[in-house]
Each structure stands twice: as structure tokens, then as C-alpha cells.
């Protein structure tokens, strides 16, 4: 039952952001991509979803983009990686 409830929460969230015109937000796009992993029939779904939502870069940033993480990675508009 708890998992059923969480699945419906995800579905309702996706409906809601479309209704409010926010479906193009990069976090919503990342969520839609991540959902595909749920039904690909392969193991380690939790690990793979977390990896897909992660910053794939390897060098520290030159400057901070704020104290708070956003939930999904978005490629920066301008380069800020350390050389």
C-alpha cells in the first residue's frame, strides 16, 4: 500500500506540473527520464536513478551556485569548473 501511494503521488505530481505549465522545468524533465528506469526490467533501479539525477562532472566548481541542491543536475549556463 505505501508503495502504491507513492507511485500515485508521482503520477499526480506529473499531472500537476503539466496543468500549471511547469513540465518543462529541468527537474521535471529529469524525473520523467528517471521514471523510465522503473520499468526497464534491470536490477539496481534505486542506484541507477540516483546516478542519473547526479552531477556527472568530476572537477570542483570555481564558485558556489548557492547553499541548496535542487534535486537534479542541470548543465551550467557558463563554465565554472576548475581547470
Amino acid at each position: 500500500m505505501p508503495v502504491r501511494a507513492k507511485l500515485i503521488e508521482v503520477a499526480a505530481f506529473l499531472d500537476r506540473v503539466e496543468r500549471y505549465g511547469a513540465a518543462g522545468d529541468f527537474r521535471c524533465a529529469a524525473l520523467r527520464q528517471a521514471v523510465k528506469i522503473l520499468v526497464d526490467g534491470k536490477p539496481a533501479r534505486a542506484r541507477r536513478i540516483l546516478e542519473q539525477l547526479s552531477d556527472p562532472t568530476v572537477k570542483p566548481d570555481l564558485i558556489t551556485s548557492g547553499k541548496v541542491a535542487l534535486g537534479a543536475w542541470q548543465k551550467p549556463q557558463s563554465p565554472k569548473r576548475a581547470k
Partner: protein
Amino acid sequence: MRYIEPHGHMVSRTTDDYQAMVTAGCVAVCEPAFWAGFDRSSVDGFRDYFRQITEYEPARAAKFLLPHFAWLCINPKEAEDLALAADVLAMIPEFLAKPNVLGIGEIGLNRNTRNELKVFEQHVELAVKYNQLILVHTPHLEDKLKGTRLIVDLLRSHPGVKPERVIIDHVEEHTVNLVLDRGFWAGITLYPDSKSSPPRAVDMLETSGHDRIWLNSACDWGVSDPLAVPKTAFEMRRRGHSASYVDQVLYQNPVRFLSQCPKFRLGD
């Protein structure tokens, strides 16, 4: 059931929480230094905070018969100010001899910046110099994987760091093996909305092993649950794990790691 809360920011909690934790079987609580929710304006703010977690909070916990231990640092969320970080780092040795101080923590990264990494490295140097245990915070959400890799790489490149004396906290499914496979201890944090839930934590114990892992609530001023650790014991028992298994994960494991500091002592 007995358990240790190895990571709780008790200055943010009420005495009701102390009472509930002790009633649930908590026999010790450890408080890493962390962010107050706003940036402190000077080193004196940290001095007051260090006094709070090394003098006042142990006395408050003692009213509930609960041993209280602390870790010291300037947390990564305030590490962008290199001058302030240098002042705080210079002050930390004054407090290392306090009877409840276990080591340096929770240090680490927040947004994976160059300044954060620099301050993290300075903390590691301090810990090695004073032979202190290390407690590491890993970043949140999309920053965790990259941050954990940076942290592990830095720790492994330092010849003075002994992995068995370092615990890397807030691991999730995509970082737990990265930490354990390199000889470090791993902490799983149980949060209502982020980090790990009790069922996911038990999944990780079952798939990655339970020898060098502890569980914590990291309860603070945000959305968190000071009883998350004993609630996870229920999840273990519901799956058929024995009482001795629960005891190893929730009590014996933290005792084994923390006892590397001679100041970690529990009463009868």
C-alpha cells in the same frame, strides 16, 4: 533494545526528544558540529557554539542519563569564507581536549566547490596532526555522487589518513559501495524526505553488508525524526533479522568505531 544515536544535532531538539530517545533505548548520542541555518558572522559565534556542544549540551543530556559526545569543525556550508574558516580551524585545538570531543566533523563538501575542498583538506590535516577520528558529511541530492568521489579521492591520497578511522556519512545506494570498498566506514542517514528511508537502509545493509555501517537520524532543526534509528530496528525485525543482528548494527558497530577514541566510554 539498546542503540546509539551517532549523529544528532541535539542543540536543535527539545528535552522531550531526549526523553523519547532514552525511552526507546538510546544509550549515547553524538553531536557533530554543523550549520545553524544561517552563516555565523565571526569566529566568536563558533566559540560559543563549541562551548554549547562541549559544556552545556552534555549537561542537558545528563539530566536524561544520556552520555553526550561531540565533533568539531566549521561545516562545509560556511566554508566559502576562507578567512573565517582559517580562524575557526585555528581555534579548534583549544577544544580538542574537552572530555566529550571525539574528533573532527562533520567536515566534507556541500556544493563541491574549490573553497569547500580546500577547507576540507585543512580539516583533514588538523585531524591527522592531532590523531583525531574523522566524520565526513557528503553533499545532498545531485551533488552527492561527485562530492563523495572528491572526498574519497582526497582522503585516499593523504598518507596520514587511516580509512578505518574515518566514517563517511549520508551514503545512499549510489555511494555506499564507493565508501565501503575503499576501507572507510559508512553512515546511513534516515530522513523522512531525503537521504534514506528505513526500508532503503535495510536494503543497503542486506546488499552491501553490515560490518562497517552505522545508522543515524541526523535530527536537527529541519524535517527529521530523532527516533528514526529505533524505527529502523523494527523494519529489520519485520524482515526476520535477529535481535543480535539489530544489536550489532545499532549498538556494536558504533561502539566499535567510536571506541577508537579513548574518550568514548559508556557507563553500566
